[in-house]
């Protein structure tokens, strides 16, 4: 499809396990973003990539969270030693240019940590 694709759509894991969430942005979009949406809350910024590099990772909550975008397209959000508080919907978005302010969001990956 032409939109932002995120996999898996749902992930259930146990506390302490490692999780990877994948994002396929819209073709040609250079900017890629990860947000996290907890129940009853709005999306919260995690990290922003311009090309291959993380231009702003100030929203990552701690060093258990890490994200990569090695070829400037697909991105993977990695969470180590998951905790129950990590349960949320992880949203990926992309845009032509960060200065437009228009983000195209995927449907999200719902993570449940038991």
């Amino acid at each position, binding site marked *: 499809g032409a939109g932002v694709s995120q996999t898996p759509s749902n992930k259930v894991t146990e506390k302490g396990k490692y999780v990877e969430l994948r994002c396929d942005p819209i073709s040609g979009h250079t900017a890629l973003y990860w947000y996290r949406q907890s129940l009853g809350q709005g*999306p919260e*910024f995690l990290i922003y990539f311009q090309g291959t590099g993380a*231009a*702003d990772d100030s929203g990552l909550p701690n060093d258990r969270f890490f994200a990569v975008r090695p070829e400037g397209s697909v991105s993977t959000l990695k969470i180590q030693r998951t905790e129950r508080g990590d349960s949320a919907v992880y949203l990926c*978005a992309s845009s032509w240019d960060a200065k*437009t*302010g228009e983000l195209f969001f*995927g*449907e*999200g990956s719902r993570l449940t940590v038991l």
Partner: protein
Amino acid sequence: AQSVTQPDIHITVSEGASLELRCNYSYGATPYLFWYVQSPGQGLQLLLKYFSGDTLVQGIKGFEAEFKRSQSSFNLRKPSVHWSDAAEYFCAVGDMNTGFQKLVFGTGTRLLVSP
């Protein structure tokens, strides 16, 4: 720090009636304001944005919003609601200095449309 307040968690509107969703922001400089809609099974979609100029901005799906600096508000309006407008609506503020990548969202307002 920037913040956004959406005081209404839920709103129910009859189909065909007018709609206004409230949004208040806190930001020290000129804000860059957005409304996004999240429909079931779909990603967040941009409805409209305000950067500068005319304080009444038109968006997609018949929505408009008015920026009122004196009230620190950016309320979303639609003159006649359709059943397909039932969704969650998020107001967000961006920062020109960070290039809009770090949007701050409100907690959202869920719109229910009654027949």
